[in-house]
């Protein structure tokens, strides 16, 4: 196709991405001009832009998959589903961060710009259709994330977090490129459809498997699946809490959807080979995430291990190799996001001397001090622990069902045991909240965090659970139309 015509056809379909680009560029210029005075206004604009991008993604979601920019990206319903989740998560965490940085007087205009750029990277990740756009998306998201992790330049822990994240992530990016070069070398193409065709004809052999495994390792690093999770606790602990909240939510969706696309589009024909790898990643993440979390005393480290364990459950769905696999992972993520964001909102709400809660002991006696916050926290914790009737249980049910359908009974049973271990450390938090003697009084929480927490808790129970049928239909429909 003529490149000019392709470009003019592609641009309208890339509206969500263009909106984010426009905001990031305009925001950077405005920020350079007006400095940090416009922090709140720019952040508000950023929230509008990010949510608007999510809205555009769903509003112009085409019936069938359409390739744009000469096959570099694809606009399809899985992408739209993921973009809505990413936009909601990024928008919510941007709101939380704006609120928090206003309290701690760290109002720097780069914050909304970096979040928007990271979101743009995630949008590219979930619609990547060849190896180049895959890499560009991952790197765009990661680069913004390194800067965010080192947000407190003067703080040793934050700088350390940023540097550690950057160095380790660079290694994984190297692995990703190395793996991609193998895939290119053995299939002769960087395009997903051409790779799929080559795989279908039996191309590659051991070299292609080598490339695929390297790519899976790199993506495992990006989504912090064990055994590639080592950076996660340190980065989560070192970064300021609102930034940690951002890391724990949206990028997870992008990485899981990207992995789903990679496994179920170009490498669908190699399912028996990658199934073992993904199942192993899932098993190690679930078990290690749960076991290591048991001994944490720092809230953010605990949340890091919690996210590792949860990625294990999402991967468990992907490991099934059936059509249900990606849709169960999507459902799991959609139900996991509100719990995580809500918990971070509550952590940000619990401030003493301006700083949010850091250790589990800071939660002590919350039920006596602030029964409402305790009630919200309880709902969110039981949800993420997968106890019915909360949304997290339905997510677990979805991935367990997919795993059993895929015949991986051992993985399902292991998942059950890991869920009990995970419940044990969530119960430790609950024991602090409900059973312990009260810690010193908290500052009054701001409106933004409470609204976010309340909305998340509402999503974990009445709304999402009752509308679960529609969510399930949307996820399954998206997967059917796209893969």
């Amino acid at each position, binding site marked *: 196709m003529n490149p000019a015509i392709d470009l003019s056809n592609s641009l309208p379909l890339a509206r969500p991405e263009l909106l984010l680009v426009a905001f990031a560029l305009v925001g950077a210029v405005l920020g350079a001009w007006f400095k940090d005075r416009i922090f709140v206004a720019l952040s508000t604009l950023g929230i509008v832009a990010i949510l608007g991008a999510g809205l555009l993604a769903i509003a112009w979601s085409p019936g069938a998959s359409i390739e744009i920019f000469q096959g570099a990206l694809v606009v399809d319903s899985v992408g739209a589903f993921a973009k809505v989740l990413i936009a909601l998560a990024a928008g919510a965490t941007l709101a939380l961060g704006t609120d928090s940085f206003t309290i701690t007087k760290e109002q720097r205009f780069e914050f909304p710009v970096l979040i928007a750029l990271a979101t743009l990277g995630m949008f590219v990740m979930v619609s990547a259709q060849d190896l180049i756009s895959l890499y560009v998306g991952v790197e765009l998201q990661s680069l913004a994330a390194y800067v965010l992790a080192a947000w407190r330049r003067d703080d040793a822990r934050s700088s350390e977090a940023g540097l550690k994240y950057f160095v380790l992530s660079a290694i994984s990016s190297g692995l990703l490129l190395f793996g991609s070069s193998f895939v290119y070398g053995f299939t002769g193409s960087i395009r997903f459809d051409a790779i799929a065709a080559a795989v279908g004809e039996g191309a590659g052999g051991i070299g292609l498997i080598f490339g695929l495994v390297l790519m899976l390792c790199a993506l495992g690093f990006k989504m912090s699946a064990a055994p590639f999770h080592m950076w996660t606790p340190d980065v989560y602990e070192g970064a300021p809490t609102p930034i940690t909240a951002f890391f724990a939510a949206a990028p997870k969706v992008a990485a899981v959807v990207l992995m789903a696309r990679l496994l179920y589009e170009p490498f669908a024909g190699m399912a028996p080979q990658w199934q073992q790898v993904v199942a192993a990643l899932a098993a190690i993440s679930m078990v290690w995430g749960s076991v290591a979390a048991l001994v944490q005393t720092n809230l953010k480290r605990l949340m890091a291990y919690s996210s590792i364990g949860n990625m294990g459950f999402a991967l468990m769905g992907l490991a099934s190799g059936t059509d249900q696999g990606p849709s169960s992972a999507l459902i799991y993520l959609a139900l996991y996001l509100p719990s995580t964001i809500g918990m971070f909102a509550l952590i940000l709400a619990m401030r003493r001397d301006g700083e949010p809660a850091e250790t589990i002991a800071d939660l002590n006696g919350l039920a006596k001090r602030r*029964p409402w916050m305790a009630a919200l926290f309880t709902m969110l914790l039981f949800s993420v622990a997968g106890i*019915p009737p909360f949304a997290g249980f339905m997510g677990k049910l979805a991935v367990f069902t997919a795993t059993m359908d895929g015949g991986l009974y051992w993985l399902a049973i292991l998942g059950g045991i890991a869920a009990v271990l995970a419940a044990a450390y969530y119960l430790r938090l609950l024991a602090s909240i*409900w059973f312990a003697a009260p810690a010193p009084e908290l500052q009054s929480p701001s409106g933004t965090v409470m609204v976010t927490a309340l909305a998340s808790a509402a999503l974990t129970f009445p709304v999402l659970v009752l509308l679960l049928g529609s969510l399930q239909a949307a996820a399954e429909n998206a997967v059917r139309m796209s893969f």
Partner: protein
Amino acid sequence: MSEFVAGWPILSIVTFLPAAGALLILLARVSARGENVGYDNGVKLLTLLITLTTLVASLFAFAAFDPSNADYQLQEIIPWAFGASYAMGVDTLAMSLVMLTTFLTPICILASWSIEKQVSSYMVLFLILETLMIGVFCAQDIILFYVFFEAGLIPMFILIGVWGGERRVYAAFKFFLYTLLGSLLMLVAIIFMIATAGTSNIPALTEYAQTTGFEQNVQIWLWLAFFASFAVKMPMWPVHTWLPDAHVEAPTAASVVLAAILLKMGGYGFLRFSLPMFPDASHFFTPFVFALSVIAIVWASLVAFRQLDMKKLIAYSSVAHMGFVTMGIFAGNEQGIQGAIFQMLSHGIISGALFLCVGVVYDRMHTREIAYYGGLVNRMPVYAAIFLLFTMGNVGLPGTSGFPGEILTMVGAFQVNAWVAAGAALGVIFSAAYALTLYRKVALGTIENPKLDKITDLDAREWVQFIPLIIATLIMGFAPSLVFDFTSNSAATIISQFAGATP
């Protein structure tokens, strides 16, 4: 009366009335300026009113229910996700357990009058617990059943952990994690069954299991997974160790609910799932269950004899009595199953009443140590009389509701295996030994402890909480056929489903 509720989702109303009440209390808490004694009493009264309304609603359901019909009745069904649906319905077995729940909860609220800290939260959790307990018995979809079954852990965890005794945190964790592990294995089995049978509706699953049937070796695994959950819930020896801890540390009313209703979920599960859906595996495992039951009966009775704590003694006695239930269920004949259902209902009332008896003296003296008491009959004659009645019920004296269940489960087991019945009979003797010893040490003799000089007899509230239990114990003791006639339909269905197996 049945016309009156026709067209109403009466089971949903009964199930969710307490939850709606909990919401009401929460809203009241928002508008209130803060808790004080007057406010707390108002909340207690409101909760009592809500539970009584639920009792009335369940009576309407009872009236609309036709006990001569063996099918599931009062059905409601709304599609949901994952092929599951919100399906409610009861047969006579479920209906009798629903009635037990709605009957006991108002009494538990009365027994909670001495709660002083965080009253609103306590009452809200209790009401949510009632909703979930009723839901377990009404659910007709296996996923919905699991949701109710598992969600019940949440309020119980917080009730034990906040309002319990000294080692409450340990007990709450042990309770939660023990039961969760059992349940998750069951969940894996449930997902497998749904995938195989293509439905999550309990009657349809039973139908599938009875006609097509799960393969025998698959049945073994499914049975074991369900057993892991129900045996812990029951609790059966050797996975009973959470029970004494949870009972001892829980507040009185939570102990009552735990013993009277939550333990029945295990027996209900065996009757609803294990026997009808995996009949071959149930036959295969019958000797195994018999062995565990007899060990539980004999061993728990002996352990009970050695206890120094009143609640712990009654908790071990519960383990022993649940041994009779599992023995009767897996005997698989009419006497055994009817006896087991009867024993579940009777144990609900008697063990609940015994925990209330402990609660009465605990409220006054704040200790449950047996050695602390003695000679209570001198200061509390009415209490001593009531305590005697329920002790006798626990021993299985004819004329109380404890007798028919015990004797029938033994008759049922005798027909299958005489040795099992002989072992269980040994347990009956031991139960007399520990129960009467407890009674002698606490109530008889002279008052040795000077602190007991000022102890007072029952007040009006405590009278009210015991009277319905006394009446129920005596009615079920003298006219057991009222219950047997009611549950005979379900029992007959389960027996035929179990007998259809190829042993």
